[in-house]
């Protein structure tokens, strides 16, 4: 199934998610993270998109995965947060 969301990050930028997911297994098949935020380095977003494939669409699991990638790789965001990204993804399910 495919879905989109638009979410204004509190105190940040406008996040747009395009999500392809497996409804039965509740898994991410493909994700595009778009918007007018900043990421350092820019490749961070492509790495996160890749790492999120086959991740279960559940708040705690998503947040911890995103948070740990950011920390491990020392990524820096401006106008985007791990919380906001998690929320944007989950809004695709509504």
């Amino acid at each position, binding site marked *: 199934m495919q879905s989109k969301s638009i979410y204004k990050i509190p105190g940040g930028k406008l996040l747009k998610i395009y999500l392809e997911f497996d409804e039965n297994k509740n898994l991410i098949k493909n994700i595009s993270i778009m918007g007018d935020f900043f990421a350092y380095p*820019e490749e961070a977003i492509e790495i996160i998109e890749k790492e999120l494939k086959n991740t279960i669409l559940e708040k705690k699991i998503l947040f911890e995965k995103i948070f740990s990638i950011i920390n491990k790789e020392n990524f820096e965001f401006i106008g985007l947060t791990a919380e906001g990204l998690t929320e944007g993804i989950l809004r695709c399910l509504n």
Partner: protein
Amino acid sequence: MFKLKEKWRLLITENNNAFRNMAIDKAVLKSNSEKKVPPTVRFYTWTPPAISIGYFQSLEEEVDLSVCRDFGVDYVRRITGGGAVFHDKELTYSIVIPESHNQIPKKIIDSYERICGAVIKGLKHLGIDSKYAPINDIISNGKKISGNAQTRKEKTVLQHGTVLMDVDVEKMFSLLKVPNEKIKDKLIKDVKQRVTSVKDSLKKDIAFSKAAESMKHGFEKEFNVDLIKDNLTDYELELTDKFERQFFSTKEWNHKR
């Protein structure tokens, strides 16, 4: 101890198209990262007018491509994040400088503010009071007059940004897509209230050359340097041609999201 003022390079490149403008910024970033040129400030314009989108934006979500074609407006994806910008009557600046330079704060958000400080001093020289508005705007009288975007690659900072000389909000919104067409009229009204320009502020037209002179003054004052007018090097011209051809003018690059 007395220390000579540092000399940085100043480039003034008017009337390039969108692809070439973005290629020049990337070329200067590369040549500065290889220590081939000093820190560089560039002032430029866009011919024809163009939309640039942020690195993470979807071209087709943000831009009405058929209206762009009708108006003869180009579109290009930037290497910097941030939002979609309609570059028409504006002065655009870029600065390229090593991350390790003592004038550049280590924290990215602080370096936005520092570089915006140069634009604010330039506006002041033109007679316009303005201030930094986080994350990446400069406002005058509570209205946006400049938007800015920064990337860091190969330990080098590139920040580019706009100084609006005049603004046509209706035309801008005919080129940009809005999430909800029903509220477009209200959105245009809101944005008109929230955006200003040099012309709006001073109630007269200012020539690009005069604005560039004031911005030069602003950068020199903010960073305590002399800006020496020069040209792109042969190496940078070669890179520019290559980046224009391989990235910025291609469908693969511009439609990648």
